[in-house]
């Protein structure tokens, strides 16, 4: 025993303190307690993180504007994978490939990490204080109407804040630009149904006739429509298995799934719609007299000649539509993309009226009870309007957020040159994209998996939904900020008194949502409880009455005579909006580059689709590098001989050919916007996507196309691999 009463433990304590004293004696007045806050015990891990177990947080996908709810799997504080949020009425727990790739937007190695100020051709990293101060300074001597904002579609509280900032600056120049939006169809819908975006019931239709609406691939809300489509195809449904007829010049993903795919001569969609109305009348369907009179001239013979669709096929279609009701007729990108696109869309809408589908498969959408958060939807005329203002030297300070017009707008606009006229351009960006490359100041954004926000999707699936965006993990890079935080800081420069109570955008969103708590169904609930429930759900379903459908399509439709063949440029160019690439904003996500285009199975490059007959005439075959020339320019790419296209047309995918953005996108493929002519729809002024005429010439070079398809080229060589059955030889009624 130790006699003086010091036991072993006390002895070690003394030794420990002594040791600490000795080791620290040379370091000034430091104590052993210094820095203890940075030592975190594993048992006191962040409250939400359970080591080894995935925790799911709900938020909203921002890869496109459909607004699907997501449920992100988080482990040890990292987000690993996105699943669909089952509660969301948009996607009911499902996801598309584009959405799945969202994690690669977050972890992308090419994100902008600090504010960059242009000095000559270089970007110099600066602090946020300096960046925001600089904006204030540059706005100093500038009048309100000399400040312009170009954004993608915005909604929710970010839209409110942005509007307030614009008001504070006295600027009314908010250009909302979406390169691939259905803007002509919106206008035609407004005229025909009284609403821009009616609620579609694909699941209730017995027949869907779609004039180039790629609702399974890239049109409006593809995951939602895919689910309705799955219902529509069920043989066990009371209406029986639905029939899909797709009419378009270039086969889309939806066309590839059609029972009947009809290759129509480009631009004659309206003529065919009138021809079907005429045929319906002949088949005995009661048609209003004025409509009948308008369609009388569209005889089967004439329509067949103009559209390249056989008279027999038109009769079959009319018979099908007459006998199987309700049906649903859709006008999509392929029909609206012409100088007479509005007329095409109006003729197609008239077909819905004639068939009595309005009110049955075309329903009124719900009204958004708070119009200030409703989506500000984009169109293509916005970038044209901005470009005009820039050209006239009317813009001194330009803010760009959520849009990359230098890449997506036709080069014929010369936007890149005109941008130079604006003295100070601020671009809020995730990547150094083509527009950010032109900026004077680049502000680095949080990824959408790090940011706060709310949004209301334009297409209201089943009632209105206020989607919540919340961070699924800590910021990856310490110096990025959310768009909401940036605009709030800028607003504080103008209206300090009014906004000082909101510490950050999160506080603003929380306060704003709680201020309308009662209207959101939180009556009588504790604020904290209601907010936690909202975050846990990832969305709030809003009560809302339906808007009313109104207005009947007038029969005043004037479709142009078939355009004469242009000898210098004999082919139509159809820029193809692919399900993966859309407008190209996500091109730097490698999963999307490596996920084959469903139709051609090509990866990591652009291509030009040419019908076998046209290819034979031009003397080109798969892998030939050709020059595609329009009045606006020339691009070179590889030929893919493709049966699913009208012989008068060729098609090149949109969104490729980046000159910036990042390592996975730069110089992959060619940018079809470089050769698109700036021709617009006569009524709406929207860029007519499919109006460009081109010629194709050989370069003599060849490549081996990199694609999923094997050397057999989509043939099964007599094997039973992917099998098809005719509907009259199968009994679907007893399936599970």
């Amino acid at each position, binding site marked *: 025993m130790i006699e003086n009463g010091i036991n072993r433990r006390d002895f070690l304590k003394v030794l420990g303190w002594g040791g600490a004293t000795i080791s620290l004696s040379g370091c000034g007045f430091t104590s052993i307690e210094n820095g203890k806050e940075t030592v975190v015990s594993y048992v006191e891990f962040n409250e939400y993180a359970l080591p080894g177990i995935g925790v799911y947080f709900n938020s909203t996908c921002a890869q496109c504007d459909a607004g699907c709810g997501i449920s992100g799997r988080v482990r040890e504080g990292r987000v690993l994978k996105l699943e669909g949020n089952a509660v969301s009425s948009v996607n009911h727990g499902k996801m598309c490939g584009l959405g799945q790739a969202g994690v690669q937007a977050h972890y992308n190695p090419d994100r902008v990490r600090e504010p960059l100020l242009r000095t000559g051709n270089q970007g110099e990293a600066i602090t946020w204080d300096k960046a925001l101060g600089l904006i204030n300074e540059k706005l100093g001597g500038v009048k309100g109407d000399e400040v312009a904002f170009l954004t993608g579609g915005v909604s929710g509280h970010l839209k409110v804040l942005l509007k307030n900032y614009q008001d504070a600056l006295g600027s009314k120049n908010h250009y909302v630009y979406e390169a691939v939006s259905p803007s002509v169809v919106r206008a035609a819908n407004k005229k025909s149904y009284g609403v821009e975006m009616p609620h579609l019931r694909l699941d209730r239709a017995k027949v869907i006739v779609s004039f180039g609406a790629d609702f399974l691939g890239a049109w409006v809300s593809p995951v939602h429509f895919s689910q309705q489509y799955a219902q529509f195809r069920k043989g066990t449904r009371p209406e029986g*298995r639905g029939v899909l007829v797709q009419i378009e010049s270039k086969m889309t993903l939806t066309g590839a799934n059609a029972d009947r795919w009809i290759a129509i001569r480009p631009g004659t969609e309206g003529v065919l719609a009138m021809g079907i109305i005429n045929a319906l009348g002949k088949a005995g369907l009661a048609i209003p007299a004025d409509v009948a009179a308008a369609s009388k001239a569209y005889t089967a013979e004439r329509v067949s000649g103009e559209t390249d669709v056989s008279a027999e096929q038109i009769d079959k279609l009319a018979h099908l539509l007459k006998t199987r009701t309700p049906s649903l007729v859709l006008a999509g990108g392929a029909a609206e993309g012409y100088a007479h696109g509005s007329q095409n869309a109006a003729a197609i809408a008239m077909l819905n009226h004639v068939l009595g589908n309005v009110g049955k498969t075309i329903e009124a959408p719900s009204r958004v009870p708070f119009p200030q958060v409703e989506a500000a939807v984009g169109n293509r005329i916005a970038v044209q309007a901005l470009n005009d203002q820039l050209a006239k030297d009317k813009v001194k300070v330009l803010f760009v957020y959520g849009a990359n017009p230098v890449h997506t707008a036709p080069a014929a606009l010369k936007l890149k040159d005109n941008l130079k006229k604006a003295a100070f351009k601020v671009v809020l960006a995730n990547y150094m994209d083509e527009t950010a490359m032109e900026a004077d100041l680049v502000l680095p954004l949080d990824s959408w998996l790090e940011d706060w926000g709310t949004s209301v999707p334009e297409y209201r699936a089943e009632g209105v939904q206020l989607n919540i965006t919340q961070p699924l993990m800590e910021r990856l890079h310490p110096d990025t900020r959310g768009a909401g935080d940036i605009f709030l800081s800028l607003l504080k420069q103008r209206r300090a008194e009014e906004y000082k109570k909101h510490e950050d955008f999160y506080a603003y969103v929380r306060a704003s949502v709680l201020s309308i708590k009662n209207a959101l169904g939180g009556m009588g609930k504790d604020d904290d409880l209601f907010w936690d429930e909202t975050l846990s759900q990832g969305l709030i379903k809003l009560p809302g009455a339906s808007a009313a459908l109104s207005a009947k399509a007038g029969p005043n439709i004037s479709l142009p005579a078939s355009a004469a063949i242009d000898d210098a440029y004999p082919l139509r160019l159809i820029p193809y909006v692919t399900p993966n690439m859309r407008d190209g904003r996500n091109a730097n996500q490698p999963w999307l580059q490596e996920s084959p285009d469903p*139709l051609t199975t090509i990866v990591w490059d652009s291509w030009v689709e040419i019908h076998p007959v046209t290819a034979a005439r031009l003397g080109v075959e798969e892998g030939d590098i050709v020059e595609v020339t329009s009045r606006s320019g020339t691009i070179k790419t590889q030929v893919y001989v493709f049966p699913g296209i009208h012989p008068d047309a060729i098609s090149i995918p949109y969104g490729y050919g980046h000159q910036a953005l990042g390592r996975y996108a730069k110089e992959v493929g060619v940018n079809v916007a470089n050769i698109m002519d700036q021709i617009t729809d006569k009524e709406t002024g929207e860029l007519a996507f499919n109006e460009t005429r081109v010629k194709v010439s050989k370069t003599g070079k060849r490549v081996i196309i990199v694609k999923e398809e094997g050397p057999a080229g989509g043939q099964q060589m007599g094997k039973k691999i992917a099998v098809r059955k005719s509907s009259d030889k199968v*009994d679907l009624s007893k399936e599970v």
Partner: protein
Amino acid sequence: MSVTNLLENWSKVRQAHPVGDAPHAEYKWAMAIDLDACSGCNACSVACYAENNLPVVGKDKYGHGQAMHWMRIERYWDEDGRETPNQGAQFLPMMCQQCEAAPCETVCPVGATNHTADGLNSQVYNRCIGSRYCSANCPYKVRYFNWWDYPTTDNVWPAEMTQQLNPDVTVRGKGVMEKCTFCVQRTYAAKNTARNEGRLVRDGEVQTACQQACPTNAISFGNMADAESKVAKQWEKQKVELAEEEQNKDNQVEPSALRGYRIFEELRPYPSVMYLERVRESAV
């Protein structure tokens, strides 16, 4: 387990397609894929990349047939000489068919690929020596070889992207074969949970990543040993028998009005994936 024991009880240890006296025990994972619902959108394939740590190989390697997509969509055209494909295209999601008598298993010189008790065709990465015999013998071409050391290859998983990797799934190195596992990490977790609670995995409790993403619900996955599971009911309604090499319904004089079939059944691998034929309307 001693070698003697292994050899003496070989019939119990070797898991092959069930025969009368040795049916599957608690679990037999299987799938049914409705080609009439499948739109060919590729969501399943991207979901598989996200779940299973599949490397993105880039254009050159893709061109050399080195893509690592465990789940891929094949696209076929009609072959009757029609001028335009006026009934669209045919899409086929293709992944490991988890054959009951898998041709890949018998040729592996080191026993790296085996049949598991729950009816999966497993791949033991750290046993694999890269002979690639299995891939050569697979009629579906769904085995993918690591020709490169992807974790150290530029731009496959640059710094930040490594944080996305699923910690439940191994990142494979150079020289091993890999393939679809029916998301074994998910079935394993579900079986553990169920065992802790003293029950079997319920139907719908576990989903594969492809099934979970599929926007048209074309893929069903579940336990065939559970007669009440959706997948078992689908197989039963379609009169497709797991243990048959030729389905009775296909031998009738009257053609069957059912849609279920298995690919390359005649090779007798007894695949665990049933496809449902695509339907096309005759009236239009």
